[in-house]
């Protein structure tokens, strides 16, 4: 094992600036969309009084969840002391901050009164999980920046482990908090389930790692740095495990709901009769986001090929967006169950007449705002790796630390 050397991303300036240009254009379009929605009001979006959180929340929550998940790589290296992951810690921290900033910016720009952000920062109602999250998010950024310092600065090295433990605990709290935004809502059939907190932790593990792997592969490919089979195998196996954990939580969540008579109607609707939402659930979330990636990642031949692993990561991300769509929008579209045992024949406020779901179709500005947030995250990552030493020079097998299992074997066979 050689000493790990970190080096700035040295792709040709033309390539770097053209990437910056693409992302800046997307951010600009997102900013214009924000301006349009803010000026005209939310009536230009697909959102309504029934579906109050739309496409921007899908992007925002996906990014926030991925942010905490992206930090796992650093945690595995520092807290769980797996040396093979150590060289990836810095990029992991950068991604965590960048994805969180992008997600939060989408959330803020989707507020009805975004200019009142100062109110949100000066008036707190601590019975609200939203208010906790303001601290969880800002605290997360501060902790991750300290974590990065402890990784990159010699003086910070002694603090690396305690900060790492703290960051891990904080990120678990953060993602549980994000899931609890939904899980503590008693009003809606799909929410009102404490399992959503840990389920979001599981989602974050998978989505954060998928994003991390794609960024890592892209950066290394562009500059011709090498990733050895051992790192690739580790990341691939980890992703497969996380995707399987997601599947487990989804299964438990729906089995629990099916066991409760009062949630039968919702489950029947989502799993069978929800039209577009049923399609997005089965095809988008379960098939594209879970089963196909699992098949690829456990396939004896395909799982050895980098491009197939990249395809699996992409599918996990697409499945993640589908999952958010189902969790956030599908759960609102299903009508509130106010009158058990009754059918609503008429209503002056779209209360689900004859059990009909609320209609929602994302508008273009909403989607562009979301893409703008993603582009901002990528821009932060791009500039970060270009100007600072986030990326290890090589992840080839001879550079990274030996596998712990082999180390243990070596110790075992060594004569006393």
């Amino acid at each position: 094992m050689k000493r790990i050397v970190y080096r700035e991303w040295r792709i040709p300036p033309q390539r770097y600036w053209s990437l910056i240009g693409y992302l800046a254009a997307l951010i600009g379009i997102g900013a214009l969309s924000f301006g349009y929605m803010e000026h005209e009001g939310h009536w230009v979006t697909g959102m309504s009084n029934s579906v109050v959180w739309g496409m921007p929340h899908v992007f925002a929550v996906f990014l926030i969840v991925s942010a905490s998940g992206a930090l796992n790589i650093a945690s595995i290296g520092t807290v769980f002391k797996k040396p093979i992951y150590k060289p990836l810690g810095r990029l992991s921290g950068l991604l965590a901050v960048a994805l969180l900033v992008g997600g939060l910016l989408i959330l803020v720009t989707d507020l009805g009164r975004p200019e009142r952000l100062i109110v949100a920062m000066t008036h707190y109602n601590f019975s609200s999980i939203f208010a906790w999250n303001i601290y969880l998010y800002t605290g997360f950024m501060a902790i991750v920046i300290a974590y990065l310092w402890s990784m990159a600065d010699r003086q910070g090295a002694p603090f690396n482990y305690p900060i790492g433990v703290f960051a891990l605990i904080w990120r678990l709290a953060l993602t549980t908090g994000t899931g609890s935004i939904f899980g503590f809502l008693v009003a809606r059939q799909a929410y009102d389930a404490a399992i959503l907190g840990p389920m979001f932790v599981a989602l974050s593990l998978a989505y954060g790692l998928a994003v991390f792997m794609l960024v890592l592969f892209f950066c290394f490919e562009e500059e011709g740095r090498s990733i050895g089979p051992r790192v690739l195998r580790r990341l691939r196996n980890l992703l497969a495990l996380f995707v399987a954990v997601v599947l487990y939580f989804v299964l438990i969540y729906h089995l629990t709901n099916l066991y409760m008579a009062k949630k039968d109607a919702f489950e029947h609707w989502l799993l069978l009769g929800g039209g577009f939402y049923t399609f997005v659930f089965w095809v988008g979330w379960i098939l594209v986001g879970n089963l196909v990636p699992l098949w690829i990642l456990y396939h004896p031949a395909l799982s050895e090929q980098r491009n197939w692993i990249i395809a699996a990561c992409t599918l996990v991300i697409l499945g993640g967006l589908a999952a958010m769509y189902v969790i956030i929008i599908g759960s609102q579209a299903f009508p509130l169950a106010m009158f058990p045992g009754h059918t609503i024949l008429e209503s002056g406020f779209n209360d689900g007449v004859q059990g009909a779901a609320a209609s929602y179709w994302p508008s273009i500005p909403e989607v562009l705002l979301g893409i703008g947030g993603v582009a901002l995250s990528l821009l932060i990552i791009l500039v970060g790796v270009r100007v600072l030493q986030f990326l290890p020079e090589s992840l080839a097998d001879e550079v990274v630390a030996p596998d712990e299992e082999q180390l243990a074997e070596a110790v075992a066979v060594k004569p006393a």
Partner: protein
Amino acid sequence: MHRLHAPHNQPSGDESPAEAVATTRRALIGTAAGLGAAALVAPGVVLHTLSAQAETAPITNKSRWGLLIETDKCAEGCRACIEACDHEHGLDRQVPEGSPSKWEQQKAVWIRKVKLQDNQTGRITQLPLMCQHCEHPPCVDVCPTGASFKRADGIVMVDRHLCIGCRYCMMACPYKARSFIHHNTTGQLTAVPRGKGCVESCNLCVHRRDYGQDSTACADACAATGHHAILFGDLKDPESPIRRRMREIQNRQIREDLGLNTGVRYAGI
């Protein structure tokens, strides 16, 4: 330097007569404008001071305002309560935008009629549905800034200055009682501040409460039609008509399972 500091309404000795006249005229106009403004504003100030007396009485928890709705008296096709509410709060001044179906989805609604059928028996029930003014309101729990709040007298409402438009209260309300203002609003009433980007809902005609009036627009309108399906009153006063009626007939809360102790109760569901 001295000229620069000379008061504008005092002609200085070295000014020409024309300048002096102009300066005097300016001073005169200034004084007249000041007096005029005072004459215009002062009655307003006096009126405001006098009329504000009713508003400054502290809100206490000696009362808890609520509604009793007798669904068997709620007539099919009658919209009197909705129209009265819309008029009372200026919701009828909303200007539709977008397609009719989009407007239906996005317009503010504080009170609506719901027609239900019992799946087992086929019995039809009509009822008006609005903010239920919970004793333990989920909207107040989840509001990050405290914009959703409950007054001491049990009225749940939104402080439009603190509302950031996050819509979390709408996610949390089990009654879908809240509306988000998707559009620019015009022609709002002084008593009912409304604005784009904020959330709003039934406030039990809080402006009437604060001026000592003892009813709501919906209850009055319902009584005027002769149906008397909506009864407003103090749930804490054992002798109030609402409490007497609640003793006489069975009534319950919508989504009783949540244990929110709503201020709006229904008979016949």
